[in-house]
């Protein structure tokens, strides 16, 4: 496995956002203040890079997505009305950009029924013991369609109905794809020796 760079794990206190500072940053970005834009970028880019990487197949691709996403963020920041967290707003843009960025990426979703899916399991403890970078590498090995559905459902927390709308598929298809993605992921984990122990 080839880990990408050194992932940063900041403590909870470090990533807490001072509301006033965030508001100042937003105002500065609305006024096209480059310093504010840079500060905003420095604040959120590492986290959003982490998000982007989960949807892409390489670091280069993830950086392209991140670049497009930040251009959108800076251009559309005046549309942020303060409803919901600002980070959530940014994350949503990054996720949407990642899903839409690669036009050549055609998600293959095959309709199927859940009954056909045999249930397999992997020890969660084994996953917890893994390095995130290694896990990311395994996640990136998933086919694009599986990767998108798994990311959206398991990590982002979207419902199958929301995923269906985002990917223009039915929620049943999303459910099926998720189940298949999970099975595929378990196989991949097993391939790398991470099994129920």
């Amino acid at each position, binding site marked *: 496995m080839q880990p990408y760079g050194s992932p940063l794990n900041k403590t909870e206190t470090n990533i807490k956002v001072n509301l006033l500072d965030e508001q100042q940053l937003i105002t500065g970005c609305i006024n096209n203040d*480059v310093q504010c834009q840079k500060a905003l970028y420095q604040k959120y880019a590492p986290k959003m890079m982490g998000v982007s990487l989960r949807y892409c197949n390489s670091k280069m691709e993830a950086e392209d997505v991140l670049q497009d996403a*930040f251009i959108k963020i800076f251009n559309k920041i005046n549309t942020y009305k303060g409803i919901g967290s600002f980070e959530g707003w940014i994350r949503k843009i990054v996720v949407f950009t990642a899903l839409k960025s690669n036009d050549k990426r055609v998600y293959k979703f095959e309709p199927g029924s859940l009954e056909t899916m045999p249930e397999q399991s992997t020890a*969660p403890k084994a996953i917890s013991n893994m390095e*995130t970078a290694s896990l990311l590498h395994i*996640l990136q090995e998933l086919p694009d369609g599986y990767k998108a559905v*798994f990311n959206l459902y398991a*990590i982002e927390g979207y419902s199958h109905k929301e995923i269906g709308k985002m990917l223009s598929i039915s929620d049943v298809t999303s459910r099926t794809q998720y189940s298949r993605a999970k099975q595929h992921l378990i196989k991949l984990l097993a391939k790398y020796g991470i099994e129920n122990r």
Partner: protein
Amino acid sequence: MKNDIENSFQQKFKNFEMTPSEGLFDAIQAKIIKKKKRAIWMWSAAMLILAGAGFTLWPQSSHKYDNLSKTLVKSETEDPTKPQIVDKASDHPGSSNKTTVTYDTKKVIKTQAKYTEQHTAQKTKNSYFEQQTASNPLEKQVQNTISSLSSKDFTTQKTSDTKQQWAKLFNKIEKENQHSDATQNTLYLGTKKQTVDGQPSLLGSSKTRTQENALVSYEKRNQPSLASAEKNTYEQVASCTIAPFPTGKLVAISKWRIQASAGVGYASRIVSATTPQYVANRNSSEKNRVSYQLGLDVIYQFSPKWNVQSGVNYTQRNEHFWHEKKTYSTQSREVERSETIIHPILGEIERTYQETIIDSTAQYEETSAKNDFHKISIPLVLERSLFTSQKWTLLAKAGVLAGIYAKHQGMLLTSAYETQTYTSVPMRTTGIHQVVLGLGAQYHLTPRISLIAYPQATLQINSSTTSKAEFSQKDWGIFTHIGLRIGL
């Protein structure tokens, strides 16, 4: 419900971060600036296009003196739905004079609206006309007369003062306007048209016009499309005052024009026959020469933009025919020859013999001729003005040229590669019809006279030959006409 795997992944990636490559922010900034620059350029281009389109399409004031071409075109068509103001002089005992004043509806409504405003404000002068700078004495006179007339109540129009002023105004129009034609029943004053029914001498000899004839009253005719509000406004204005004249140059012109034009161009023909060899023979023996067209047309302008034309059209297509025929003649002759043979035993032996030689001589027979094809047709053409500026009008036309006479002179090849004259070919002498399409420019020298330059293409619809001929032939040509169009 999510199981442990999902939770494990969620926990693992919850705070997962990775620093992107250095310089990514600079790349983002560069892209934003580039996008902004592109947006500025696009906006600038869009604004330029809008400004250009606005400048081009903005309606030019039809009150301007020099905007004659536009005024003419606009004024020439009488819309039956437009309000009309009629001089009821004909109602007056002992007089047959009748003056009809026709307004462009929009202009009248606009003018009336302005005037009503001023009337309410109890103004004695019509500032609408003051806004327009009078550039010559006639216009000033017209404006002054209108101003003084419009300030009076309609009921006072019957006074001799008003009548005198009207009479003076018409006199002035007649005397000073170079373009007015006393023989015409119609004259134009800006967008307003005045028609003098049955009494051309009214304009030519205003002395016959009595003060009584200057009595002006109003009536509306054929205006079903006028909204009631407009109708009321019109009535209100008409009942209190004379609707003011839009000022402009007086031009007498009817809806009829004549046009004479001559064109040179390239013309050819499309030959079809059962054998391709015949077509090849024809094409190799005939070369196109400069062709000519002449046209004399009468034009009827039935709407501001559309007119219909007919008249006489003469087309002469020229060709050069050249054919070289090669013939061979043979002649035999006897020649006595001798040769010496060396025999191994007999030694040298001399032998004499006769030889027949055939001489072949090639003869070239060259035939050349000037082929010319004459066609006289009656055009029926519809023309539309696409764009009109102060001096220029862009025109497009389409129509048919109905052939009434055709003559073909010269030589051509037969399918046997022999020459023959056109008189021996069953050619049509009548009924050769063509379609014509043209896009031309008109330059207005004066309100009546304009120069035209008209590139046009003609294509024959039917064959020049009858069904008995071994081939069919359709002419086509591209001509550029230069001509003169005169308003009657």
